[in-house]
């Protein structure tokens, strides 16, 4: 980013901050604030250990200094502006989850695909937080990061005092780390004279049991009854290792029978006692990997981390860090809804090949094309990403 580009981007950010609606975190006067300024870029110098006593002070800072990136601490401190961590005196911290496309397994092709993929993970996480952990909808604050992912903030009193190891337990829960499927799903020995094998019955938690057990039940029953309804169900089932035509027919019969299904939902697994255990295990493991939400563990366990301010702009994309409700998340399209700049035409020189789809338009640019003209919102994105410089020369 050359100086001219910096001046242009900064002036656009300034226009935004003059009227921006900033979502202040609870107890914002107890937070440490940190900013990265355009003038010092490309060096990433964090101006931190700041504190604001009123929302006016923060607004003045944003529209006066016009930072490229704005953060506040997930922690609450007694003295948030003390120059070192010890003197700040940590009091408590919000519970944070970071879902970032960079950390997800599998590499989707485009930026839009990546954002969609991480959104699906976010919806899974929301399910855990709302159902399993019992957080009310209004206590789960979802934020699009302005980059490649979503942040979840929870500030209820009970979670604020949790330590790092305790927060890691929550990450492990949603990510199924350390989950012992056999603990929920497996065989239970029954006493008798029969041989070991025949003296074991399959057990599974009922569908309304809390935790992973109930989740696995719901997944397996819905997955198998879904297959049983399909015309090519035999073909699908025989695709599994250990399932021949006969076993497949058995399964279909069971999962077309409402009475059997309701027994299975209650954890009564006798109907499946003839079905090879490896098949059921494979299905349970499939359930676990489909339902796990992959969150960035170090972010959650770090109780002093700085996190992006909702309502601020992400200096690496020019997009708005956007607070969302769960229903907004479902329909949220970052490349449309987090875009804040106008359609006014802007002249650029492309320095790196780049393609992005914003507001329904495809922008594919190559260096060496001379000066190009694109709408301001796309220009801001390309400038912030370092794919172009501002102006015609």
């Amino acid at each position, binding site marked *: 980013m050359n100086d001219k580009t910096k001046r242009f981007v900064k002036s656009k950010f300034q226009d935004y901050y003059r009227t921006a609606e900033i979502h202040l975190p609870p107890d914002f006067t107890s937070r440490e604030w940190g900013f990265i300024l355009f003038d010092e870029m490309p060096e990433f110098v964090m101006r931190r250990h700041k504190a604001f006593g009123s929302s006016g002070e923060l607004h003045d800072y944003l529209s006066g200094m016009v930072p490229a990136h704005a953060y506040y601490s997930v922690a609450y401190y007694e003295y948030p502006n003390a120059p070192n961590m010890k003197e700040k005196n940590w009091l408590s911290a919000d519970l944070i989850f970071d879902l970032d496309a960079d950390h997800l397994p599998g590499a989707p092709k485009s930026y839009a695909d990546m954002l969609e993929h991480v959104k699906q993970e976010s919806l899974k996480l929301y399910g855990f937080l709302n159902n399993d952990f019992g957080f009310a909808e209004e206590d789960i604050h979802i934020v699009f990061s302005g980059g490649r992912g979503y942040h979840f903030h929870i500030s209820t009193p009970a979670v604020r005092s949790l330590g790092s190891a305790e927060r890691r*337990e929550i990450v492990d829960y949603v990510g199924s780390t350390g989950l012992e499927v056999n603990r929920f799903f497996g065989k239970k020995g029954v006493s008798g004279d029969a041989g070991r094998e025949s003296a074991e019955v399959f057990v599974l938690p009922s569908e309304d049991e809390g935790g992973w057990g109930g989740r696995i039940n719901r997944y397996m029953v819905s997955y198998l009854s879904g297959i049983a309804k399909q015309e090519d169900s035999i073909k699908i089932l025989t695709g599994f290792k250990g399932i021949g035509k006969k076993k497949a027919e058995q399964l279909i019969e069971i999962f077309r029978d409402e009475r059997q299904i309701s027994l299975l939902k209650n954890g009564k697994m006798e109907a499946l006692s003839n079905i090879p255990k490896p098949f059921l295990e494979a299905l349970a493991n499939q359930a676990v990997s489909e339902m796990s939400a992959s969150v960035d563990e170090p972010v959650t366990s770090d109780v002093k981390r700085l996190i992006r301010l909702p309502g601020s702009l992400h200096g690496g994309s020019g997009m708005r860090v956007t607070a969302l409700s769960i229903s907004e998340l479902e329909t949220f399209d970052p490349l449309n809804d987090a875009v804040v700049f106008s359609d006014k035409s802007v002249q650029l020189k492309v320095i790196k090949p780049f393609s992005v789809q914003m507001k329904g338009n495809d922008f594919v640019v190559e260096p060496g094309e001379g000066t190009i003209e694109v709408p301001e919102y796309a220009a801001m994105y390309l400038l912030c990403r370092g794919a172009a410089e501002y102006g015609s020369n």
Partner: protein
Amino acid sequence: MDDRDLALFPFISEASDHVGSLGFSLDRLISSRALDLARIRGKERVIQSISGEIEKTSFSGSEEGPVLSELLSYPFARILVSCIDDPFLTRRYSLAEAVAAYTLLKTRDVEFLSNFGNDFGVDARPSDSYFDINFTDYIKLASSMKDLKWKLVNRKLDHGNVRIAKEEFARLLQEVVRARIHDSLPIDVPEEICDLCAPYLDGIKEILDKRKTEYGAGDFEAVERELFPPCIAHAIANTMAGVNLAHSMRFAMTSFLLTVGMTVDDIINMFNVSPDFDVEKTRYQIEHISGSSGTTYKPPACATMKTYGNCYGEDELCKRIRHPLRYYSMKLWIKKRDEGKVKVQDKVVDPEQK
């Protein structure tokens, strides 16, 4: 809680309030002839904590005297532990008090446990034979437990509530009891009071020193596995590889590990590698050896190991010792000595010292 329960669980807030309301001065606690029995029992608590488990009475008679002695023996025991102010003793004592509490709590009903939990800020709502507890309380209690069964991911979690069995709750309460006692020690005891307690302290110190020299390590907290004798190292390697050990060898290994300061959970964790690992069975066996049945077991000496064919990989140091624990303590001593040497050499080449 009635007076008897307060005497059995003297570390809960209600018990210390009760002791306060009785109006015994520190001087009286230290010197009143009427409180002789409380002081003797206080000393006994500390000694039992060093060698095994603190045994609690069941107050069979209707007399008030034994109840009061038991109650007041606790503050006196704390004074003794604080006067000695030895980290090993403090840890050992806190743990023993907590384990004794666990043993009693297991036998109480869910309402009792629920009230008990309240004193530690734990809100556990009883229902039949289990509890519902908020997940934040649960992970605060359970995140230090090593066994995978305590991990939140393996629990029934529904709308913020974790369901736990009564005995599990008692086990978790053991941890908070231990932490409360450990964190409250040492208390600030004036020197002249410690001087007055000297007759009680001498006996304890002797047993403590004996215990410490017997097993070598001044600090049991850092267990140095690479310093274990070859027989124990071999047994550990076999266990981890899934090879079944002879009963006598498993006993020798487990009692050795417990004695050098590993916890039951540490040991379970170490062995939890093979797929057919039975946690509950192993826990039972280890806890039995660790003295939950009332008897503590010491690891067998080299001669016994040889008799049972468990002496393996005898080396030069083995020839100079008669007990596997002695091997470990000598290795620790050698290591410390060598580390000392390294420091001396560092000083010589330190450029600042030219």
